[in-house]
């Protein structure tokens, strides 16, 4: 009796654990592992139509978990997908381990190199020139704002005029103070994350110098981003909502805050989550005009069983035609250089954001962008800095005290 039960359980266990796609129906199964919203679903179906011997499944995980798992899969040499997406906060960690990836140079890399800006190509390459990542999108940076809330404060609501309210971040903070004076029950921006990323993304040199040394202590640009953000937060302009939390999402719809620094991919998120507030949001230029937050690459881990097919898929997904279509569906701004003069991109407007010319706005911000080198632990260090700003928000530390702690954390991560 017991042995039969045991056998039955073993059978269940085997089917439960052993489930995996085998190439048993004669087709090649590829898995693509992403995070957030890459907009690839319809593209997979088309690729399968063009290549009937291929079947594609996607795995989507939370960004932090995704990269943590990727690291574990690479180290244990098992479990990675055939195509893995990597975000800018982690790309350097993986370009430092080129042995774990397939080199795109061996699969037609040099021929397509010119699709991307030099910095995007370089960021996906290892020090010895091996190319492990092909660029997908680029963040760009703009300032999304609520027309109704600015109107309540007696501020202009038309986007060019709004853009002129804040040519610099100092002006932005000053506007914020004016806003709060007149509308004390609404915050000026969402939380420390977006504003800090916005300012930092405009600097030529960020957390790392070009040689993977952490320069948080010595780089005045980082301190500047910190000081401005800390100032904004100390002035009570923040709604203290954690980015991507349910409160933050609710805040987008309910008008908890008047502005939020938004890269292109975030605009799609706002449009979805704040659907009930359609017509209230608009986009203006960001203080400092350029900037970038986000952007990813597609890589192919070496442990894949189908390197040729996987690289072909990655190359197709990152081709300019596909990037243009993704921009239409998800607002992920392309990284393909040719598209920056393409009228299809430039003419694009967003109905949700009051027919704002999003194509032009983000194309401008991307061309004005100063490419910034990201080091292996950029993601973690930024998280610690944002923690530091949160501490100021919560009243736990003064800005100076908090900065000292940030430096200690940065040292531990170097």
């Amino acid at each position, binding site marked *: 009796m017991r042995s039969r039960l045991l056998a039955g359980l073993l059978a269940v266990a085997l089917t439960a654990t052993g489930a995996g796609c085998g190439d048993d129906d004669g087709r090649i199964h590829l898995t693509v592992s992403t995070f957030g919203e890459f907009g690839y679903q319809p593209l997979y179906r088309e690729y399968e139509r063009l290549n009937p011997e291929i079947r594609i499944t996607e795995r989507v995980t939370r960004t932090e978990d995704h990269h*943590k798992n990727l*690291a*574990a899969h*690479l*180290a244990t040499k098992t479990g990675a997908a055939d195509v893995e997406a990597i975000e800018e906060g982690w790309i350097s*960690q993986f370009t430092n*381990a080129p*042995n774990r990836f397939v080199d795109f140079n061996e699969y037609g890399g040099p021929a397509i190199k010119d699709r991307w800006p030099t910095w995007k190509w370089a960021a996906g390459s290892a020090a010895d020139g091996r190319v492990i990542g092909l660029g997908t999108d680029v963040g760009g940076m703009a300032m999304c704002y609520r027309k109704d809330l600015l109107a309540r404060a007696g501020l202009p609501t038309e986007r060019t005029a709004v853009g002129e309210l804040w040519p610099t971040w100092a002006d932005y903070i000053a506007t914020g103070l004016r806003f709060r004076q007149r509308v004390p029950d609404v915050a000026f921006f969402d939380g420390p994350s977006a504003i800090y990323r916005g300012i930092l993304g405009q600097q030529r040199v960020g957390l790392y110098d070009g040689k993977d040394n952490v320069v948080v202590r010595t780089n005045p640009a980082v301190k500047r981003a910190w000081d401005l953000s800390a100032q904004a937060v100390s002035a009570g302009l923040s709604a203290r909502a*954690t980015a991507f*939390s349910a*409160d933050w999402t609710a805040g987008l719809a309910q008008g908890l805050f008047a502005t939020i620094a938004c890269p292109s991919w975030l605009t799609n998120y706002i449009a979805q989550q704040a659907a009930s507030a359609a017509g209230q949001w608009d986009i203006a230029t960001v203080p400092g005009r350029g900037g970038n937050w986000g952007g990813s690459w597609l890589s192919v881990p070496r442990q894949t069983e189908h390197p040729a097919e996987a690289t072909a898929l990655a190359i197709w997904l990152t081709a300019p035609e596909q990037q243009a279509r993704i921009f239409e569906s998800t607002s992920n701004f392309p990284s393909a250089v040719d598209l920056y003069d393409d009228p299809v991109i430039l003419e694009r407007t967003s109905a949700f954001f009051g027919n704002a010319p999003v194509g032009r706005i983000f194309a401008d911000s991307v061309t004005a962008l100063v490419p910034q080198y990201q080091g292996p632990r950029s993601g*973690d260090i930024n998280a*610690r800095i944002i*923690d*530091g700003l*949160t*501490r100021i928000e*919560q*009243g*736990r*530390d003064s800005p100076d005290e908090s900065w000292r*702690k940030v430096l*200690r*954390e940065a040292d*531990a*991560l170097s």
Partner: protein
Amino acid sequence: MRRRSRFHRLDRRASPYLYVLPFFLLFAVFGAFPLFYTVWVSLFDWDFLAETHTWIGLANYTRLFGDYTFWNAVLNTVQILVLATVPQLVLALLLAYALNHRLRMPTTWRMSALLPNITSVVAVTIIFGQLFGRDYGLINYLLGLLDVGKIDWQAGKASSQFAIAVMIVWRWTGYTALIYLAAMQAVPRDLYAAAALDGASRFQQFRKITVPAIRPTIVFTVIVATIAGMQVLAEPLLFGGGSVTGGSDRQFQTLSLYLYEVGFTRWEFGYASAAAWIMFALIVVAALVNYLLISRLRRHS
């Protein structure tokens, strides 16, 4: 015939060892070996993602001793331990006393006491996370009714550790109370009878007879609660919404969470192993200290 008896002798000699072998074998591989291998790993600069590991001797330990984040985690762990264990054991004693009467529907009361213990730690933390929410939590709402004002439970050191302690107390008091109850039921009735006839009140009986009589059990629960309390992980991890630092200021990061952060998000296995071993040493020390404390206390009363 002879063959059978030889087999029999062999069977009687060998089979006990055969039967206990699986336990020791599996424990040796998955319990003892990791414990010692941790020491080995801690002597290297062992990045999980790197291809090679370099020997650095005790450098991890010296770095650990100067690392304020580690000692912060130690302090938090001890604070949460005290905050959670003392009320838990006291309340468990009182609850056991209450259960140790001739009640109507005794099983129902016992089951209601045990109910918190059967849920998953993850679920409990999420529920209490909502109750302790800053803007929309029920507790802050009640505090508002009492004119106390909202507390940002997650943000403060004392408040967050208090919230976590509440979760632990809620979860374990009933279980511990049942253990005390069992021990109390073994106390001979005539002791109580004699004391009652001597005029002792119920509470005096409790203090002078019951508690000393179940002292070994109390000691045991203290030790076990100490060991468990030093390993708290799920509560701090999930109370902070998945943040591995235990709050923006590491205000509720425990040793286990620190271990998780260093080992499984930064992949610094060498450093994390050193931390794990120090944690083990601290657990032993804490258990010993608590054991001595409790024995000392008994002697005074």
